[in-house]
């Protein structure tokens, strides 16, 4: 015992190079992540750049009172939760379904080809997605207004000024962009299942449907639960690009497309309202943090290996 502690002490010096090695990364995290965490106190201040951030006056909860007195607070919370909630459910069903069907494809080359193509939308930036959606929905020149709607005898629709369509449009765009990723994860889990299970089931005369519901789904259930809970942990954070680029930042659409992230961005960059923006940001950070911790506790109960901590 004694020997160990002496050895430890003497060897401390030996680790200086390793501490030095960590320094750039540690400094980066301090400024990029930890300083902004302390910076959430500006939500309780009336920022005046003439006085500087530290010396600006404290205003207590005034920024929050303003935020929660407006209808915006309720709308952005509702939109964020409803969108993310439906994305989680729909993507889950689509991804598991496609992964199971992909596993049934006998031709390996085709299966690999399908997998690559399904993942393709996941790879491109939201700006490009904005262009792709625009080429479909543009009021004057889009494919849907000019080709598809006339074919079924309908008038063109002013997509970018009709908020009521956007919950559907954004959900479809989200599936198109993100299902591929979840699908690849589930597919990798499914191909990891021992083929003996299926061979035995076949000998016993189990139908394909029975094999899927009695073997495949129970065996990937763990991964499904973990992936889903991790997404639930992030339900308070919206995909900024989806709600900003794909809607072309159109003001007319905000009643159904404004989420917490776009609200914070617009309050900060367009209105210069630091108080409101930081109040909404703090609200998101705190609730988001609680949800991450909570969902992780649940993950740990189910499968301690997959928990974040």
């Amino acid at each position: 015992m004694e020997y160990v502690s002496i050895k430890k002490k003497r060897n401390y010096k030996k680790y200086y190079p390793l501490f030095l090695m960590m320094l750039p990364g540690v400094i980066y995290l301090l400024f990029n992540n930890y300083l902004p965490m302390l910076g959430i106190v500006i939500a309780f201040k009336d920022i005046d750049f003439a006085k500087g951030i530290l010396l600006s006056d404290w205003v207590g909860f005034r920024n929050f009172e303003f935020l929660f007195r407006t209808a915006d607070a309720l709308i952005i919370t509702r939109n964020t939760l409803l969108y993310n909630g439906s994305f989680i459910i729909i993507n889950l069903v689509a991804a598991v379904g496609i992964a199971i069907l992909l596993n049934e494809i006998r031709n390996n080359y085709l299966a690999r080809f399908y997998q690559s193509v399904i993942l393709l939308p996941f790879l491109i930036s939201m700006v490009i997605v904005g262009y792709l959606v625009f080429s479909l929905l543009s009021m004057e020149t889009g494919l849907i207004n000019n080709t598809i709607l006339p074919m079924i005898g309908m008038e063109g629709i002013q997509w970018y000024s009709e908020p009521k369509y956007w919950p559907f449009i954004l959900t479809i765009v989200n599936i198109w962009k993100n299902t591929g990723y979840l699908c690849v994860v589930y597919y990798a889990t499914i191909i990891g299942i021992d083929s003996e299970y299926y061979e035995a089931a076949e000998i016993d005369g189990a139908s394909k449907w029975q094999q899927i519901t009695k073997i495949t789904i129970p065996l990937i259930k763990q991964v499904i639960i973990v992936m889903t809970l991790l997404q639930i942990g992030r339900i308070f954070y919206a995909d900024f690009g989806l709600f900003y680029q794909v809607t072309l930042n159109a003001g007319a659409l905000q009643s159904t497309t404004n989420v917490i992230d776009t609200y914070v961005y617009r309050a900060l960059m367009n209105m210069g309202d630091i108080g409101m923006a930081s109040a909404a940001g703090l609200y998101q950070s705190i609730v988001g943090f609680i949800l991450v911790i909570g969902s992780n506790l649940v993950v740990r109960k189910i499968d301690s290996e997959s928990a974040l901590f």
Partner: protein
Amino acid sequence: MTIKRRKNPQILLNVFFMLIVCACIIPFVLLFMASITDENTIIKYGYSLFPKKVSSYAYEYLATNKDSIFRAYGITVIITIVGTFASLLIMSMLAYPISRKDMPFRKSMTFFVFFTMLMNGGLVPTYLVYTRLFNLKNNILALLIPMLLVRAFYVLLMRTFFATTIPDSIIESANIDGASEWLIFFKIVLPLSYPVMATVGLFQAVNYWNDWFNGMIFITDSKLYSIQNLLNRILLDIQFLSTSQFSGTYDFTSNIPKESVRMALAVIGVVPILLAYPFFQKYFVKGLTIGAVKG
């Protein structure tokens, strides 16, 4: 019908997947077709998968503005290369010490890294740190550093790789031979860690290539635009095409074939990644599944 279905489920399945493939690819085809459609045809009939009149005018127009496009491309390429390598270096240098079982404060340092995944200060304080404290507004470094350079998730991925694949005995014996920690890291650890470095490097390269957010909040000078920022600007503000920053001269007549030109620009922006994808897709898929299982 039902009998056929029983007999040929494979054909049916493949038809289903072909439909999915079409849904994934057709938007890109439409984008390309729009970029080669004659401007008047677009105005009359809209974008179409089978344009009535084809024209290369949009690309010719872009060729006359190649300076601003090349500059944006150059910025994207440089930022992607420098960012990926700087990020790999800094992250691995952080990950290696916390992977060493004999490292003092190893647990607390790991938590220090990990906690950044649970909580973040949000946009406003981050924005103020980089604009007020570091003055990075309209500085090219704003495309490189904020939010992208070090990501806790990748650091922890590297740490797990170092801890599980590099035998302690190799490090110990190098230590006994008098090799310095730096030498051990660069000459032994990194060369043995090619798989994880390649995976994380690929992801970071894609992240840097695709990033438009930093440019949108920190860069207002269009000379510093990356290709994503140029595309972003033109998507949200098509008039930008006819302003001086883009074309070099004021074009009051606005005779630009705007609709096809913006699509041509998007094609130019997306083609490199589509061309590179077949070569790296295998590693990309592998990386995604590692991340998910460990994450």
